[in-house]
């Protein structure tokens, strides 16, 4: 399987977080790593993609174009790996296009981090009470390409946060999405610990 791990790390804090995350990843997997950012990280391939607006977010909503592999695991820089991440790739091999974990805030608490106008529009465009998904840990394969193309277009509408744009895109073009449990992406994640906000 042609696979690897991607990070987006622009700025000093994100760089330091990515260095720490890769160190923990290496305890479990020797998969190749690509870091999109302004500074290379030892042992990882490096790419400094177009600098448009907030470059970190632009790269994140264009992961499918930036990746070096057919199957990719994207990890936010502020993650720490504490276990085996193979299950996501196994599900991609089985035919899933995308593997993600739900966010903790749901229902009325969802997407509170968006700007007022974007949230208002997003909530109007989405169907009744969708599941909010966290974009900080994602396994994706070639089948997710149409969704990523739409994600990028949706993000261009406000050029701000990425999760609202992701949900708008997902509900316009559903893909085979497998959902994993909290151990793979949460503050107390047993497999992926997500230190939310440490890059800001």
């Amino acid at each position, binding site marked *: 399987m042609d696979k690897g791990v991607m990070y987006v790390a622009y700025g000093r804090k994100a760089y330091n977080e990515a260095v720490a995350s890769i160190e923990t990843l290496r305890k479990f997997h020797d998969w190749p790593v690509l870091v999109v950012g302004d500074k290379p990280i030892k042992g990882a391939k490096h790419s400094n993609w177009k600098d448009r607006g907030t470059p970190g977010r632009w790269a994140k909503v264009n992961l499918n174009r930036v990746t070096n592999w057919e199957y990719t695991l994207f990890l936010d820089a502020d993650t720490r790996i504490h276990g085996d991440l193979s299950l996501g790739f196994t599900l991609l091999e089985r035919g899933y296009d995308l593997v993600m974990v*739900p966010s903790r805030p749901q229902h009325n608490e969802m997407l509170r981090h968006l700007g007022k106008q974007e949230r208002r529009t997003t909530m109007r465009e989405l169907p009744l009470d969708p599941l909010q998904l966290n974009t900080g840990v994602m396994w994706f394969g070639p089948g997710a390409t149409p969704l990523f193309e739409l994600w990028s277009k949706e993000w261009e509408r406000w050029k701000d946060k990425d999760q609202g744009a992701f949900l708008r895109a997902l509900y*316009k073009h559903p893909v085979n999405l497998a*959902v994993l449990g909290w151990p793979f992406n949460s503050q107390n994640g047993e497999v992926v610990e997500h230190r939310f906000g440490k890059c800001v």
Partner: protein
Amino acid sequence: MGKHWVKAIKTVIRHDLQGAYRTYQPGDWFQCKNQELLELLAQSLVDTTAHLIKDEFSGKDSGVVILSGTKAPRALKTFGIGLKEALAPELPWKRNLIMSQGASATIETVALGLMRIDTGNDFPGWEMAAMLNSATQLARDVGTKEDKARTLELIGGLEVPVYNTGLVWLRRTKATISVVKIWRDELGSGSDPQHAFIRAVYGKSVKLCTLPHEWIGKWIRA
């Protein structure tokens, strides 16, 4: 009378009897009683799903499959939705709701779920929809030791969420026919219902629209 779920379309500030207040932004959902509902509708501050269902829902080639011990929702005929009792999951219609394990649903819940698995001209659509059983429950938390071992062997991990298998909406497609076959076989061999569903869904790949735990659509009534 009961309460109604409504969606704020403008900012709504609500006060309780102690004087505390809460602000609801457009897109937020909340429950209110009849009198407040009438006031909010008169001020065009909220919307209900009644319009949405009335304007957009058609029950054509759709139905509810009731498995043993489950009560059928009322007023299915009014919406042109069929009803069938069965011993195991099956897909007699293009769009189906399979109800089991004593689950209950209003006609609005049935319709909202069926709308979620619709397709459109440029819209490929979801093939299935099901709610999470809880925000945190995992396959490792339910079932027998044997069930967990078999799921681990087939799926590759037990850190997958548990679904509420009492209400499962399915559009009849090649993928869902395959999912239902595995689901039936697993149930037939005496597997725990939640592990049976997990093995069916994660053992193949399907466009499953995962709905949040306590999906608001479950509680909607006109």
